[in-house]
């Protein structure tokens, strides 16, 4: 019962604001019933037959815990609609590096989602590392995102997504795009 309540409190947010989340999380395809979009744990996702992944009429995303390696996903990226990287605690930063590798190095074009302990002070880091969406349940984060108050800085000292090089500025500096 309490689990359902918790699920209801999670909201999905992206640069354009809050949005509906078509995905459900499930341990296996069977457990997902007839949901049209499912997120499976990495092991379950890797256990699927390649054909099922390709021919299924449902979207099958994959959830990766911080201690899990993204290597086995790399040659299948074009078949993955969504990768969710976990933040079991806000201070476990491994998923930032994975986001950077997936989006920056390997050109993953599906949805990259941050799930777990998403706090307002990490939102900009997540967006810049390459996350498209964040699953948010922290009340302060929800309130600030509702008010479009991202705790952003007017400039950044590193290249990152959603930013542009400043004309005549140092090569490592960026300003928010748009």
């Amino acid at each position, binding site marked *: 019962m309490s689990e359902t309540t918790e699920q209801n409190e999670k909201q999905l947010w992206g640069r354009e604001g809050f949005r509906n989340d078509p995905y459900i999380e499930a341990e296996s395809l069977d457990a997902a019933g007839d949901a049209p979009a499912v997120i499976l744990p990495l092991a379950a996702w890797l256990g699927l037959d390649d054909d099922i992944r390709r021919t299924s009429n449902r979207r099958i995303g994959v959830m990766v815990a911080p201690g899990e390696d993204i290597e086995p996903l790399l040659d299948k990226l074009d078949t993955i609609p969504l990768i969710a990287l976990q933040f079991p605690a806000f201070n476990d*930063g491994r998923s930032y590096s994975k986001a950077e590798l997936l989006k920056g190095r390997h050109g993953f074009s599906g949805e990259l989602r941050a799930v777990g302990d998403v706090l307002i*002070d*990490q939102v900009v880091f997540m967006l810049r590392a390459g996350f498209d969406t964040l699953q948010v349940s922290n009340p302060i984060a929800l309130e600030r995102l509702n008010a479009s108050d991202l705790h952003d*800085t007017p*400039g*950044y000292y*590193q*290249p990152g997504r959603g930013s542009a090089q400043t004309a005549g500025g140092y*090569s*490592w500096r960026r300003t928010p795009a748009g």
Partner: protein
Amino acid sequence: MYRYDEFDHAFVAARVEQFKDQVQRRLSGELTEDQFKPLRLMNGVYLQLHAYMLRVAVPYGTLSAKQMRKLGSIARVYDRGYGHFTTRQNIQYNWPALGDIPKILDELAEVEMHAMQTSGNCIRNVTADHFAGAAADEVADPRPFAEILRQWSSLHPEFSFLPRKFKIAVTGAEHDRAAIQTHDIGLHLKKNAAGELGFGVYIGGGQGRTPMVAKNIRDFLPAEDLLSYTTAIVRVYNLHGRRDNKYKARIKILVHETGTEELTRQIEAEWRALKESDLKLPQGDINAIDTYFRPPVLPERPEGWGTLAVAKRADAGFAAWVDQNVTPHRHPDYGVVTISLKPIGGIPGDASAEQMELVADIAEKFSQDEIRVSHEQNLVLPHVALADLRTVYDLLLTDGLATANAGLITDIIACPGLDYCALANARSIPVAQRISERFGAPARQSEIGDLKIKISGCINACGHHHVGHIGILGVEKKGEELYQITLGGSADEITTVGEITGRGFSSEEVVDAIEKIVDTYLGLRTGRQENFLAAYRRVGAAPFKEALYGPVSRAA
């Protein structure tokens, strides 16, 4: 020195505004201490034994007179009239009220300073040789690269939640004054045969409960690859460093457990993918940052040679200070002055508001407006004409800043210890004070010669005891403070971790034990030219253990 441009000003101002809001929400009760903790740590605010502590970054230890004056004024207005300079070239205020901290940050921003990344599991303030840009033995000034690293690491989206804190040090001379081999990354700026700048790269040095000397993983990294290579190192660490145990989370443990060769392979593989990315430093950018650190134009002052000799002959106290606290400058008419913050019987690294202001005034008039903070918790005037040394000395004398003990036995590094720190097991400051008093007579100190004593009040080793020629570690045993002694540590170009002598000593015994060690050294050295460390390296621990514990059979 570096000056903020509009970009930097806007960035720091935005962070101060955010923190103001967070403090407001904490004070109003909207945020609990637990929720506030990660936010305050991003801004250098710790909760200590008695109060909040604010640690302010002094990037690579370089300050202008105006900045130093501001640090003094903050000590007076918001603290108890003093501040504490740390082994990472920063300054700490031990008693600020939380409600005042946003105002302090505002005032710091006015003089282009901040407290970001002085705590938390991120890339901390980048440190550098405190004699950078002045020392006669320097190949190139490391500070432009420290500044590039400072900027690049500020609120880094990928590297703000590392397994543990991450410290980078840079030196530009063969003689390492920045202790680079005790850092997570140590960079040795040098020139190759073609005269191009690059870095010897070391990783995995550190102290704490598992002291390790850094491993050299690259002899010469071209300067343009600084950020891509650093990114590769930190990314491999972020992904694979241990997070199950905070005492095993530093990169030194990853190096140790993975093996230097294998970890280097991973780093190099990551780097090959990054090398030609946006992180490559254009020479134009390196030059532009370098311009800020262009050496000051120093007028010829040859009259100093003669006047200095006369003044030294006339005053033995002044002569001792010059011999001990003034090091050669690259300009022969100038010297680099170390201002000791280790008065006999005083608290290592503490400076009063008035002392800070005095140093600021002197720097403005006599040192090209520049001051350095050393990791040995002293201050440095990098560009003083020999002809002005007497005047500078007289001014320093007026407020107890002319102690002639740089590098001597009373120039002790000590962590704040149990007097302030929530982590400490034992007091450090009182032990430092008693050792200082025991050996404080100028003739005795000078007879003993170069000897670095470093004291930590717990195994976290903030007082760098592992790399003290004599190290003292405070531990707690059955409710009593006990002090363990290590010998033979060093943090220069030949970095070694000190060896534990044997059982620890009580607070009452420890100073006598140090005296026995010193007397043993004096008895066995080949002459004054063989300093403590050299003698120890020649004879080993045995004679010292015997002096401390009696015949060898008992010590073994």
